[in-house]
């Protein structure tokens, strides 16, 4: 954040999703970051904003399916864990 806080230069950018949680706190009322594109989802959102079907938009289909699959697996795992806990309590 040296560019913004020390040299007062407006900063914005895009990062991989791994780095995004560490940088999101800088998107604040102090405008340490003017905005942040975090990961593929934000990249596809940006492409939608500029009316361009790029690689991020194409990859987002597979990404969404993977997310749904992960959610289903988490849900299934939790249901199984709750059932197992109830059985052991009985």
């Amino acid at each position, binding site marked *: 954040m040296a560019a913004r806080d020390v040299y007062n230069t407006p900063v914005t950018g895009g990062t991989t999703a791994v780095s995004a949680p560490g940088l999101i706190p800088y998107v604040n009322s*102090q405008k340490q970051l003017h905005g942040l594109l975090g990961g593929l989802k934000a990249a596809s959102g940006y492409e939608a904003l500029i009316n361009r079907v790029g690689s991020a938009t194409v990859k987002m289909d597979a990404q969404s399916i993977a997310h749904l699959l992960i959610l289903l697996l988490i849900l299934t795992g939790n249901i199984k864990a709750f059932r197992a806990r109830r059985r052991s309590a009985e």
Partner: protein
Amino acid sequence: MLPNLFTKLITDFKGNIILLIPATLGIMMLLRIIPKTQWLSRFPIAIMIGTSAGINMLRYTKSDMLSQISATMINPFNAASTSAVIGNILLIVGTICGVYYFYFSKKQEGISAVPSKLGIWFLMISFGASFGYTVMARVSLLIGRLEFLLKDWLHIIK
């Protein structure tokens, strides 16, 4: 070393005479391999650490302390939309409760345990968001690699 030191010194020695200082410090650093002159390497290391600390201290204090505190000390109701007001309130409550969770000078029981428990929830949600982002990144990488393998390399998909 060749473009940054030797070439500059050969072409314009007087103009780049200041480069002799880092060159000397670099040689002093290498003297670590000789047991008798090992102590000399402490000076360049001390200069490096001191300079790094001095340069970064200002930036860290401004970016990660003062600006972050200022960003939290806001009027939550001074926002354009209802969602922004709710977001501001959550920001303030989450920050205070999250910090309070790490306050160990007083036993947290009764009413004083409430913000601490709320702080745990905020921390858990933030860790969950971080984990979610990490999963998203790994899935993106997998999709990218599969796209390369199946599209660019094997031409199975178009």
